[in-house]
């Protein structure tokens, strides 16, 4: 069935770009809040893929793909609130928010 509108490859390009930005930010940034935002970027790249594929494959149930995306957004919101709480606790305890200073996992 021929598709109307934007071709699916464009969506992949955008989501790949977003995911790569997210990965770069999550690995490179030292500010925990920026890292959380980068993770959010990666999750949204995934969400775009869910929605795009849902439409592209013309699934029998057109709500299934977007449904996943909504779940991801909900869980991500919860995750971010938890993440921010941890960042606050760290600030109180260590007077710092630089992830390079947190190396308690060192072997």
């Amino acid at each position, binding site marked *: 069935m021929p598709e109307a509108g934007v071709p699916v490859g464009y969506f992949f390009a955008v989501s790949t770009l977003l995911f790569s930005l997210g990965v770069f930010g999550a*690995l490179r940034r030292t500010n925990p809040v920026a890292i959380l935002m980068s993770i959010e970027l990666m999750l949204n790249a995934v969400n775009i893929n869910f929605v795009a594929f849902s439409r592209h494959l013309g699934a029998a149930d057109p709500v299934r793909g977007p449904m996943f995306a909504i779940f991801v957004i909900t869980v991500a919101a919860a995750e971010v609130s938890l993440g921010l709480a941890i960042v606050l606790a760290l600030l109180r305890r260590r007077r710092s928010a630089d*992830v390079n200073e*947190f*190396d308690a996992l060192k*072997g």
Partner: protein
Amino acid sequence: MPQHAWIIPALPLASYALTVFVGRRLGERAAYIGIAALGLATVLAFWTLAAVGGGASAAMSVPWLRLGDWEIRMGFQVGRLEAAVLAMVTLVSWMIFIFSKGYMHGDARFNRFYAHLSLFVTGMLTLVMADNFLLFFVAWEIMGLCSYLLIGHWFEEVENARAAFKAFLVTRLGDVGLLLGIWTLAAATGSLRFADILEKVEAGELSGSLVTVAALLLFMGAVGKSAQVPLHIWLPDAMAGPTPVSALIHAATMVAAGVFLVGRTYPLFEAAPAALATVAYIGAVTALVAALIATVQTDIKKTLAYSTMSQLGYMMLAMGVGGFAAGLFHLEAHAFFKALLFLAAGSVIHAVHTQDMHRMGGLIGPLRLTGLTFLAGALALAGIPPFAGFFSKDAVLVAVHASPYRALFWVALFTAFLTAYYMTRAAALTFFGRPREREVIEHAHESPPVMTAPLLVLVVPTALFGFLGPWFQAFVGGHEAHGAEAAPVQALAIGAAVAGILVAWAIYGFRALDRRTAIRLLKPLYVLFKEKFFFDHLGLAVARLGMLLSLAVGAFDRLVVDGLVNGVAWLVLLIGRGARALTAGSAQAYALVMLAGVVIGLFIYQVLGRVG
């Protein structure tokens, strides 16, 4: 009565426990515990002997250990051989217990001495009565332990401690053989009981080579315990112990355990002619070598020690040529007069505080009783009738003469000559002649009755036991002396003994020949004897060889075996150190690695997917 014979070893065991637990509170009165226990045991042993003589015998055993289908039983048996040895051991031990009361008076570890002595007697009596190899071996080792403890009784002198150590280690060498022999027999017959094993041997169920190997291994244990060449080197050093210990353990009883072992397993040896020949030759060599060394000893106890070794050689020789009863007869007779000689020597040492015979002389004056009893023992050892030694040695010589070993008979006869020589020499140097040191003789006084009474008691069997010879030999189940051949052998034996006495008296009594001249004339021989045929050097060389070997094995163990294990550990440690750098603690670094892993994994999946 024989059914209750187990009480006999139980008595000294009880004495041991009592002496250990309440001895400290009793002080030197603790000796009475041991003396009473041994007295009772002696009475019981003679009662048992009488009962056994009347035809009774007893055996009892209880299950000890069950390994699958294999049941090991512990028990005792009392037959003629056991009853005879029990009576001898208890009597001699009793006398020595009494003697020690005087000899050890004032010793710092008086009670410990009596405790160990009691434990030793327990071991000896158990060994004699054991009906299986396991109990036999346990008793054997108890005696080894007590020997060690008692030789080192005065361990303040490092020499004594070393002597104890030497005795323990050298006899241990023989014990390894004994253990292997027991193991061989147990593996072949499936039983540890003497009766079962000997029955199978006599029925010819075991192969000849196996019997020979087992007999030789058992004999190795006997060589160690009975101080036969080449494992004899511990016995002279064992004289470092108190003299009653030398009398009891290293003359009368424990060293006879090796001979008893051969006697106990005699059917095994009879089934292995090669092993029997080995016993005969080792015995003859020991008898001769020890007698030669004894001729140049200056220490009264060492002279007696070498004479013990020599007489043990006689017993082995008798066993080896088939004179089972003769060997056991000599064992019993020797136990009586050697205990007497050692106790008399102890009495002398107690009086003069030296063991060097060249510093004594003329002691028959102040020590009349001791001197006379010593002379009785010396005459018995030299083989002068009517003392016990004459009959028993004669029985041995007759047995050797009746065997095909012609050369060994002359060796034994020459040894008899030497025996008479060195005993006369010892008696002459100690008791006769002018006193050589005023100081020594002026302070000499006769020992108290508690010490002289045992001497007098022991004179009785020393003088009279010989007349029981034919009866005894028939009693323990051997053949009686061959009457027809006995007369010329007896004449030769008496001749050798008298010749030995005369030669020694000529040198040490009449001074017809100055001993220094004699030494100069026979210088190489003198050095050879004085250095004990260099057996100590041989022993040291063997020990050094063993040490080198163990050092090499130790180095291999440390470098290669441990090296392998430690090397693996080091490798892991090194890898771990390297890997530690990876875990710098930064969560972002971990995430990066994770990402790299995912990428590489995907890459491989793609490539392999294409290829596949």
